[in-house]
């Protein structure tokens, strides 16, 4: 494969390097500069809101976590799509507006379904 074929992917590489580098820099910086005051509570394993499980790892999880995570991803992606649209709002014009409306309405339908189905109802 010739190098020119990969040329369009150069920005991607840049993003990768930037994101990875930034993460690394932040971690390193906080490790170096941050104050360290360990306590018993702080050093327990963090498990997304649930009690840490000392016994078997094959415990049953409430499916609610997954649903919320899925919903988060869906709307996260929506934002990802909305952002470039907003940037090019004028150039895309009514056509872009229509397309995004279809996209958003589809998601709203999904949300309405999920909501009524009770997926957002944490207690039940």
């Amino acid at each position: 494969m010739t190098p020119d074929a990969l040329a369009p992917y150069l920005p991607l590489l840049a993003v990768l390097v930037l994101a990875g580098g930034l993460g690394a820099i932040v971690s390193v910086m906080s490790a170096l500069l941050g104050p360290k005051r360990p306590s018993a509570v702080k050093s327990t394993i963090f498990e997304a809101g649930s009690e840490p499980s000392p016994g078997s790892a094959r415990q049953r999880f409430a499916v609610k976590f997954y649903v919320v995570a899925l919903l988060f991803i869906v709307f996260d992606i929506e934002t990802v799509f909305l952002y470039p649209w907003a940037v090019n709002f004028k150039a895309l014009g009514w056509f872009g507006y229509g397309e995004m409306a279809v996209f958003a309405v589809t998601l709203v339908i999904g949300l309405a379904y999920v909501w009524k189905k009770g997926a957002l109802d944490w207690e039940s």
Partner: protein
Amino acid sequence: MLTLPTLTSTDFLPLWPALILSAGACLVLLSEVFLSSASRSFQPLLTVIATVLGALVAAATVFSVPTGVFGGFVVLDPFGSLVSLVICIGVGLSALLAPAFLRGRQAERGEFYALLLFGGAGMSLLVLSNELIFLFINLEILSIATYALAAYLRRGPRPAEAGFKYFILGAFSSAVLLYGAALLFGATRSTLLPQMGAELARIFTDPTLSDRQPLAYCGLALIGAGFGFKIAAVPFHMWTPDVYEGAPTPVTAMMSAAVKAAAFAAMVRVFLVLGRGIPGDALLTGFSTLAFLTMIGGNLLALPQRNVKRMLAYSSISHAGYLLVGVASLFVKSGTTKGGVLGVTALAAGATPDTAGALRGILFYLLAYTVTTVGAFGVLGALERRDDEVRGFAWDLDRLAGLAQRKPAWAVAMAVFMLSLGGIPPMAGFMGKLLIFRSAVDAGLVGLVIVGVLTSAVGAYYYLRVVVYMYMRPAPEAGGLPERNLSTELALVLSTVAVVVLGVLPGITGTWLSRGGSVFLGR
């Protein structure tokens, strides 16, 4: 500067069936949560209306000129429209079978129909895909809907097993297909099928590019394996009996009819477009080997089955084999001769490969098989009882014993379906086999056709055994009768009539089907 593609109404023309199905699915979903207190009997009706509308729109585009739309991502061609039509028919008939089945299991929920419709939309888009990523996404849309449907009755061990197996193995095959697509992309630097086809042709003619040939071959083989899973070709068939048996019967009907049709059509499109530049008979050998193994394997495995649902699952494998004979005949290059069962026999002068004829044969077969298999599973689904499912003899042959005395009309319908599956005139299945085998003989695949005819004869044994049980065995003492249900009976009547009419008057599909040989191959 941003350049917008200019989209016209023609660009959306092929998408309409999928759009209608999706809109129907959204409606059903919303109705499920907002109208849940009301009776749910309108949901199947809504589903059927959506499929009928989809079928009508698909039928309306049959006479279009093959073109690529949406920047070449989607095609508008009669072949795709006709397969969309078959898919809508398959999904619609399966939806008609569902209400009685679900009611018997207290599982009437709108999600079932929504998933059916979403799956249908995915299938319809799949056959129109002209780009590998788009194709993969559509394949996943239909697969995910089908995984969920297979495990829909999640309370029993069998549906859970079916859903799980289907999901795991399906993910495996999707990965294989995706890997193949990646390899092909590496070889051709494009994901648009026509461009890939042109590039492949260059790879195989330009000696400086010959180092990419292994990549191309491996990619093709992997994509073929991925499709082989969806169409249940031997040796990628292993999931079929377990999943078909465990899935709710209307879902099984949909899987064996519509999903199979969609996967076949997509496979034919991909390999027709990509295969133009492949020299020699690599594709022919591949497909004829698959056809050979599938016909023999499917029929032999079906032979000892007493479980009719499993038998039909194996029968679905064997029918994939017959269809593969038609697919193989697409890749015979005129002038080649090679001996052997899988090879091309030189025939009398004038016999030339007729690609359009073979495509028409495949289309007719898909249509005939769709109406037949949905009907057969429909009868079976209406006869099974919940409490027997766990013990596994819900679909034993004895369940059908004496059906002719208890329910003469059902027995007639089932007999019609069995005869059609067995390829016995004057049923649709016979005409389908005839068309496929004829185009294969025209192409010179005599050995394969002989195997096909012999295995059909083997198949007649287990299909006719069902008829024997229905007509010549006394009814069991405590044989429960299915409740009468309008929509189930409507589906059965429609498919029985379709099977007989297509068999007796195959010409009524005439002008439409004659367009079926028209596939968009790119510029």
